[in-house]
C-alpha cells in the first residue's frame, strides 16, 4: 500500500485492512468495537476517501525522494517501541494490572446499577454518558468544519456564476 501509485487501489486496500481489523477485534472479544469499525472504518471512511478521489483525481505523481531518512526514523522508533515492551504484561494474561483496577468493579456492578447486560453499552451510555455527549460535540464540530470548508464556498461560487451570467 505504501508503494502503490494508484490511489484508488490504496483506498480499496485501506477498506480491506479496516474490515480485517474489525475481524481481529471480534476475535479479541470486542464485538461492539468490531461492528463500529466495520461500519465506520471500512464503510464510511472508504466512501469519504472515494469521494475525495472523485474530486482530486486518483493518480499519484512519481517522486524521486530518497526513502533513507524516513526509513531510518521509522526503524529507530520501531526499535524503541519494541524495547519498551519488555515490562508489558503478556498477551491475554489475566493477571495484567489493567484487569485488576476498576474493571472488575464495572463488571460486577454494571448489571445491578444500570441493568443492561452489555457492559460496554452500560459504561458508554451511563457511566461515561457525558463523555459520549462530548464525543457527539466533536463529531458535530467536525461536520460544521467540513461544511464551512466545502459547503459555503460552493454556494458563493454558484452566486458568482449567476452574477457573471447577468
Amino acid at each position, binding site marked *: *500500500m*505504501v508503494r502503490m501509485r494508484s490511489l484508488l487501489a*490504496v*483506498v480499496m486496500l*485501506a477498506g480491506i*485492512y*479496516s474490515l480485517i*481489523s474489525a475481524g*481481529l*477485534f471480534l476475535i*479479541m*472479544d*470486542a*464485538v*461492539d*468495537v468490531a461492528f*463500529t*469499525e466495520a461500519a465506520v*472504518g471500512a464503510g464510511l*471512511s472508504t466512501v*469519504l*476517501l472515494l*469521494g*475525495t478521489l472523485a*474530486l482530486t483525481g486518483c493518480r*499519484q*505523481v512519481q*517522486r524521486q*525522494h530518497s526513502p533513507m531518512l524516513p*526509513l531510518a526514523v*521509522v*526503524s529507530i*522508533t*520501531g526499535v524503541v*517501541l*519494541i524495547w519498551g*515492551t519488555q515490562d508489558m*504484561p*503478556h*498477551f*491475554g*494474561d*489475566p493477571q495484567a494490572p*489493567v*484487569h485488576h483496577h476498576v*474493571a472488575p468493579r*464495572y463488571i460486577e456492578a454494571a*448489571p445491578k446499577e444500570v441493568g443492561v*447486560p*452489555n*457492559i*460496554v453499552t452500560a*459504561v*458508554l451510555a451511563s457511566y*461515561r454518558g457525558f463523555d459520549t455527549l462530548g*464525543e457527539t460535540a466533536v463529531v458535530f464540530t*467536525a461536520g460544521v*468544519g*467540513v461544511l464551512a*470548508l466545502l459547503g459555503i464556498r460552493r454556494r458563493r461560487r454558484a452566486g458568482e456564476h449567476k452574477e457573471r451570467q447577468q
Partner: protein
Amino acid sequence: MALLVYYNYYVVFFLMMAGFYMVIARGNLIKKIVGLNIFQNSVFLLYISMGKVSGGTAPILLAEGGHYSNPLPHVLILTAIVVGIATTALGLALVVRIKEAYGSVEEDEIYAQDKDA
C-alpha cells in the same frame, strides 16, 4: 517462546510504523491521510489486545457467569473510532480545498507554489 508472548505488540508496532512511514515519506496528501488511518487503527488494536483475557468472552453478561475480557478499552476505542472518522472527514475536506486552491495534492508542488508566491 519468551518473545512470542508479546506478539500482539509486534504486530501493532509493525502496523504503526507502516502508517508512520506512509505519513512522513509520501508527498501525496490523500496517502498521508490513509497512513494516519492505519496508524490510528494500530492504536485501536493495541488497546483491544491489552483488554483481552485468555479464556474470557465478550463482556456481555451470561446467566451462568464466567470470565469476561476487560470492557473499558472497548469503550475508549468505540469513542476513538467515531472521533477518528470525524478528523478524517475534516482532513479530507482540507485536501479537497487545497486541491482547488493549488490544483495539486502533492506536497512538494504546493511547497514550490508557496515559495514562488
